[in-house]
C-alpha cells in the first residue's frame, strides 16, 4: 500500500486532532470551499463531479454526477447526507466521520452550492451518539468561522446544516425511508415511481441523498480536479475506496485501496490471509447484501463493473471472509435473522417472506429440513424480488439467500439428508460455477446434483 495514494484517510491517520477546525484549516481545510464559492459557478462544480466518474459509495454505485443532474428544476431543494451506516460488515462511514468530519462538511457545502441547496441534514445512525456530538461541534465551529450560515464568506450563498439522529432501524438507511424518518414518520420507504428523491423528496421537494464517503470524495474532486481524481482507481471505479475487511482474516480493519486490487489480493496480501492458515470457504465482498463468492471466484477486481460481472456487487465495501469451519447454513441463518429483524414490514412479500426464510433455514440447520424446503426457499425469494416497495427485500434478503443456497447446495442437502448440521470439506461444499445454471427466475437446477 502506498500511503500517498490514500487520498481519503491519509490526513486523518497522520494529523492529530484533525477534528478541530483550526487544525483542519492549518492543513489547508476549507480552502476548497472558499475557492469554489468565490471562483467557480455551481455548474462547474457539477461538471467536475460528473467528469470525475465518481460513483456513489452507499452501495448501489450510482454515478453521483448523474444523480445530481436528475434533480427536478424546483426550489427549495434539500441535501441529506446518509450516515445511517448499518449494513453488517460495513464501518467505513463511521471511521470517516470519527476521523475527518470537516472533510465531509466540505463535501456537503460543495454539493449544496453546486445544486442550489440552502438546507441540509446529515442523518447519523443513532448508535453513533459520539459521532453525532462531534458532528454538532464541527457544525458549530463551521458556523463560527463563517463556512455555514447566512452569506457564507461574503458570497451571498446561504447554507444551514443539521445533524439528525437515526431512528434505530436498518431501513432508515434506505433513501426514501431516511426521508420519511427525517420528516418524523415511520421510515417506510416510498414508492418509486413517483417518489424518486430527486423529483419528490424531503418535504416533497427535490432532494439529494448521498453517502458520507461520497461527500468526502466530492470535496477531493473539487479540490484537485476531475482528472486528478481519475488518476486513482480504474475507469469504471475512479478514486480510491474504503474496504472494511472482517471475518476470518489475520489483519482485519479498514483499508483505503484502489479498485484495481483483486479480492484474492485483498484477502491474502492486505489481510495477511486466512486466520490460522485455514482454508478459505466463502467471501461476501460488499456488505452482507452482496451475493457470496466461492474460493473459485477470487480473481476478480473490486471494481463496481467487475463485481457485477461476477454476479455480485461492490456494495459498501465490507468484505466478510469465512474459513473452512463455517457452516454455510448457519451463516445464512445468521444473515436471514438480520433480514427478518430489519424488514420494515410495510409490504407483504418481505414482511411475510423473511420470517419464513429464517424459519426454514433454522429448520434445516437443526436437522428438521425437508427436501421441498429448498424449492420453497427459492420460491419465497422469487416472490420478493422485484415485488416490493424498496430493494431491501432483495438486498439483505433474497441475494444472500439465493446465492448461498445455489452455490453451497451440497452443504444444504447434507443438512437435510443427514438431519443434522454438517460442515463439508471446502472442496465438496460448493458447486463449480460452470455447474450452476439459473433457469427462469428463482428456479434453479444444479448439473451435478
Amino acid at each position, binding site marked *: 500500500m502506498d500511503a500517498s495514494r490514500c487520498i481519503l484517510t491519509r490526513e486523518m491517520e497522520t494529523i492529530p486532532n484533525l477534528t478541530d477546525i483550526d487544525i483542519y484549516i492549518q492543513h489547508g481545510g476549507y480552502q476548497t470551499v472558499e475557492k469554489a464559492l468565490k471562483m467557480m459557478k455551481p455548474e462547474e462544480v457539477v461538471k467536475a463531479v460528473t467528469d470525475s466518474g465518481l460513483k456513489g459509495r452507499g452501495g448501489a454505485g450510482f454515478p453521483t454526477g448523474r444523480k445530481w443532474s436528475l434533480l427536478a428544476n424546483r426550489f427549495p431543494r434539500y441535501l441529506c447526507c446518509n450516515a445511517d451506516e448499518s449494513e453488517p460488515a460495513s464501518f467505513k462511514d463511521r471511521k470517516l466521520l470519527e476521523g475527518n468530519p470537516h472533510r465531509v462538511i466540505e463535501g456537503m457545502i460543495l454539493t449544496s452550492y453546486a445544486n442550489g441547496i440552502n438546507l441540509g441534514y446529515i442523518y447519523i445512525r443513532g448508535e453513533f451518539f459520539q459521532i453525532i456530538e462531534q458532528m454538532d461541534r464541527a457544525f458549530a465551529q463551521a458556523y463560527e468561522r463563517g463556512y455555514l450560515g447566512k452569506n457564507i464568506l461574503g458570497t451571498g450563498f446561504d447554507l444551514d446544516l443539521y445533524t439528525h439522529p437515526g431512528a434505530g*432501524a436498518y*431501513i432508515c438507511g434506505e433513501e426514501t425511508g431516511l426521508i420519511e424518518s427525517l420528516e418524523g414518520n*415511520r421510515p417506510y420507504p416510498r*414508492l418509486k*415511481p413517483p417518489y424518486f428523491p430527486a423529483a419528490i423528496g424531503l418535504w416533497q421537494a427535490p432532494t439529494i441523498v448521498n453517502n458520507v464517503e461520497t461527500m468526502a470524495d466530492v470535496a477531493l474532486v473539487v479540490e484537485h480536479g476531475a482528472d486528478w481524481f481519475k488518476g486513482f482507481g480504474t475507469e469504471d471505479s475512479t478514486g480510491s475506496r474504503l474496504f472494511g475487511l472482517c471475518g476470518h482474516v489475520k489483519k482485519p480493519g479498514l483499508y483505503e485501496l484502489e479498485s484495481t486490487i483483486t479480492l484474492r489480493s485483498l484477502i491474502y496480501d492486505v489481510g495477511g490471509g486466512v486466520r490460522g492458515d485455514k482454508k478459505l470457504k466463502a467471501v461476501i465482498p460488499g456488505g452482507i447484501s452482496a451475493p457470496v463468492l466461492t474460493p473459485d471466484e477470487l480473481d476478480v477486481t473490486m471494481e463496481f463493473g467487475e463485481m457485477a460481472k461476477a454476479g455480485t456487487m461492490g456494495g459498501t465495501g465490507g468484505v466478510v471472509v469465512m474459513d473452512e469451519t463455517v457452516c454455510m447454513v448457519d451463516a445464512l441463518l445468521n444473515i436471514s435473522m438480520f433480514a*427478518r*429483524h*430489519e*424488514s*420494515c*414490514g*410495510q*409490504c*407483504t*412479500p418481505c*414482511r*411475510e*417472506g*423473511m*420470517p*419464513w426464510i*429464517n*424459519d426454514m433455514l*433454522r*429448520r434445516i440447520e*437443526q436437522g*428438521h429440513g425437508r427436501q*421441498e424446503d429448498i424449492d*420453497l426457499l427459492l*420460491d*419465497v425469494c*422469487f*416472490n420478493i424480488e*422485484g*415485488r*416490493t*416497495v424498496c430493494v431491501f427485500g432483495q438486498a439483505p434478503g433474497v441475494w444472500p439467500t439465493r446465492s448461498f443456497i445455489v452455490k453451497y447446495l451440497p452443504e444444504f442437502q447434507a443438512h437435510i439428508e443427514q438431519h443434522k448440521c454438517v460442515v463439508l470439506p471446502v472442496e465438496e461444499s460448493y458447486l463449480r460455477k460452470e455447474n450452476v445454471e439459473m433457469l427462469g*427466475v428463482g428456479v434453479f437446477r444444479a448439473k451435478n446434483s
Partner: protein
Amino acid sequence: MEPQSPPLVRLTIDDQPVAVPADTTIWEAARGMGIHIPVLCHHPKLRPVAVCRVCAVDVEKSRVMPAACIRQVEEGIVVRTDTDRVRRARKTLVELLLAEHPTPCAKHARSHDCELELLGEQLDITSPRFSIRPSSFVLRPFPPDPSSAVIAVDLNACILCDRCIRACDEVQVNEVIGRAEKGHRAHIVFDDGKPMGESTCVSCGECQAYCPTGALIDKPLMQVKAPSTVQTVDSVCPYCGVGCGVTYHVHDNTIVQVTGRTDGHTEGRLCVKGRYGFDYSHHPQRLTVPLIRKDEAYPKQPLSADFTDYKEFRDSLRSPEWNERIRETFREATWDEALDLSARRLMDIKTRFGSGALAGFGSAKVTNEEAYLFQKLIRTVFGTNNVDHCTRLCHASSVAALMETIGSGAVSNIFQEALDADVLLVIGSNANENHPVAATYFKQAAKRGVTLIVMDPRRPPLANQATHYVRFKPGTDVALLNGLMHVILRDGLHDDAFVRERTENFEALREMVQQYPPDVVEKITGVPREMIERIAFAYGRAERAMIFWGMGISQHTTGTDNARCLISLCLLTGNIGRRGTGLHPLRGQNNVQGASDVGLIPFALPGYQRVDDLAVRTKFERAWGVPLDPRPGLTVVEIMHAALHGDIKGMLMMGENPFLSDPNMNKVRKALQALDFLVVQDIFLTETAEFADVILPASTAAEKEGTYVNTNRMVQLGRKAVDPPGQARIDGDILIDLANRMMEIEAGVRGQGSGVRKWEYRTSRDVWDEIVPLTPLFDGITYDEMARRTVIWPHDEQIIFTQTFPRGRGKFVPAEFAPANELPDAEYPFVLNTGRVLQHWHTGTMTRRTKALDEIAPEPFVEVAPDDLTRLGVRDGDWVTVASRRGVITLRTKASTKVSPGSVFIPFHFKEAAVNLLTNDALDPYGKIPEFKFCAVRVEKAR
C-alpha cells in the same frame, strides 16, 4: 368553449388495446375493460398505497413487477395480468398471508366475505405450503381485544393492508390507528398501543367498514340465527341533521346491522350513533299498547324523575319491564278507547275554553309528512297556531336573524363545500360530537391546507385540527365578531362592490363596529388583540370563506344578535353566493329543517308562508277547507309558561320530551302537572309521558316511509325496514285517526253530520303530493326522484343567493354587546355551559336504550378545569353537587382542559343529573330561544 378532454394514453392489457386518461392506474384501466386484478390493500375509495402487492402484474420490458393499483399507465406499455409469473407470485403471497390467518376468521364465519379467504378459494389454495412453523419467537397468536363496545379486534386475522389506517386518518380524520413494531412483528395499534376501547377511538366504525378480513368487525348487537336471509333497506340515519345515508340489514323483522350508503351524500361515512345506535327500535321497553291513566293515579306525579341511585336508574333502562310505579299508574287500552278519549277531551277543552287553550309540540324526528299532518291537525282541528317543536330550542335565533337580514332561514351552501373553501370559520359548534360526519369534511379540509378557524369558549376536539383556535369568554360573541369586522373595515379588507350592490344599512354597521377596536374587544372577550387581527386578516383576505355555527351561537339571550353579527361578517366580505363560501348553521335534528319547512312553527304555514299574511292564509284555507287563525301562535317555552298559568289546558305531544329538554325543569314539571289533558305519542314512556292522560304507542324512523330534510336542504327518502312492535302505529296514521275523530265530534256538536272533510291519506306519498303544491320551495320534488338520488331544495340548487337574496338586498343589522342574562357572582361563581356528547342524542330516550352507546357513555359528568378542581378540593371523578338558583344535581367530576377555569360543562342527556334543572329559561327576545349555554352555578363537594 368545449371542455378539453384529457390526453389519452394507449396501452395493451392482456392483448386487448385500450386508451385511458393519463392519470389512470393499470388497475383502473383493467377494471374498465372488465379485467379484475385481485387486490387486498387497495380500495377504490381510498388512496392507493400498494403494500399488499397482490396486484403485481407483468409489464413487458419492466425489470420489476409493478403494483397495478398505484402504477399509472404509460404510452405503449404491454401489461399482462395472468401470466405464470403473476399467478405464481400471487399464489405465494396469498399462501404466506393465509399461513397465519385464522381460517375461517370471524368475518368469513359470519358472512363468508373475508377477502383473503375468498382469494385463497379462488386461487385454489387448499393445503398451504407454509404450515410448519418452527420459530420460537413468533408474536402470534395475539390475544383478542374485546375492549371496544362495538368492534371486535382480532389482530391474528390482520393482513396489514392499512385500509383501516387510511379510513381513520384520511376519511374520518380521527388519526387513532397506526402501525407499531417492524417486520413480521408489525401490527396495527390504537394510539400508542392501547386496547381499542381505551384509546381515543370514537367508534365510528369506518375502519371495520373497510377491513377486508375479520381483524376488525362489528360486534353483533342483535342476536339472530342464520344470516342467510338478511335483507337490505336503504334509508336515512335517524339522528342528526347531517342525514347520512344508511342501509339497514334486516333479518326476521330485526335490524341486525347498519352500514353507510356509499351512494349517499356522505359517501358511506357514519358516526357511532348512526352505525351502532339502532337497537333502540327493538328495545323491550318500546310502547306497544295504548295506555290510559288510571283514575286513582290523579293528581299527576312524576314517576321516575327522583332517581338518585345511578345504578338503579341504569338498571331500569335495561329492564324489559317498566318499573312498578308506571304499571300502577297506567292501564292498557284499545286504540279506539284511547283515541276516542283523546278526541273527546281535547274537543271538550276547545269547546269550553276556545282554541287558544290547546297547543301541540311536534317533533323534528318525524317525517315531513307527519310533521305536516301534525301542524295541519293543530291548525285546522285544534284551530290554533300554538304549534312548535324543538327547533325553538336550537336554531330559532339563527333563523330569526337570517329571515330578517336575508329573508330565508336555510343554509346557503352545503357543508361538503368546506373542501372547496380557503378559510373555514367554525364558531359555537362542537361538530365532531354533534355533527360528526360533517366534521370529517372540515377535518379533511384542514388536512388539505384549508385554514380552519375554530372559535369557542369550550375547546372542541375540532380545535386539534385548527389553524387557529380562539378561546373567548362565554357570552361575548357579539363583541368578538364586531371586533373582527372593525379590523376588516379598518384595514379595508371588506368587499366594497358587494356591499354597494347587494346590501343595505352599511353605515349603521360601520358606526356600530367603530366602537369595537381590538383593545376594547380584548378586554371584553379575553382574546389578545393580535389574535383578533390575525383572524380578521385570515377571514377578510380569503377568496372563499365559509361560516359554520351551532348552538354555541344560538342558545343565548343574545342568540339573534350573535347570528346577525356572523351574517354581517359574511356580507361585509362578500363571502356568499359562490362555491366554498356562505353561511351554514348546522341543523341539529335529522328533520329539523324539514319540520320547519312544512310549517311546524307558530308563525308560518308550510314553506315559511306567514300566518298573518292574508293571501297566504286564503290559499291554505281554500286547500284545507277551514278558516285559519291569523295570529301567530306561542313558542315552546311560551306554551310551557302558559300551561303553568292555566292558559293552555290541553296538549298533544308527538315525540317530544320537554321535561328533560326544556330549561328550568322544575317549572316544566309544574306546567305539565297543571295541564288538564295531555296526549303523548312516543316510542318510549318518556319523562314527559309520565304526566300524560293518554299515551299512544308510535313508531321509529326504521318503521315507516317518509321524507326528511337535512342541514344541506337535501330532501331524502327514508324507507321502512321493519314493522312497528305490537300494536304500535306510525305517527302519521295516529294523527289521521285523531283528526278524523275530533272532526266528527265537532261536526256532531255543530250538527253538520256528514259534512266533514275526512282526512284520507293512504300513504306518505299522498301527503307529500298535498304538501308540494302548497310549498313552493319543494317545487318539482317527487318520491320517484328522491328514490333515485339526493335532491336539494329549491330546484336542486346547491348554492343559493347567487344573484340576490329573498328579501332583495342583504341587510346589515348591527348588534351591540350585552352580557348574558345571569352572570356569575360570589354565591354562584361558575358559568355553566350545556351540550351533548358524541354517543347520546338529546334526552337519551333512544340512545340510552342502545347497548353500545350506553356502554360507552353510561353516566353524567361535569367537566371542570383542573385548577378549579384543586381550588374546590375535589379530585377527578369525585361526586359534587352543582346548584343554580333553580335547582341542584349530583354527579361526578371530569377533569378537563376543554373548559376554561371558571366554566363548567354538563351534557343534558342524563335524567339522573338533569342539567335542565339548573338552566335559565330567560329568552332571546327575537328567536324566543332560551339561554342554555350560560347560567351561574355553584360547585361543591358532595356529602
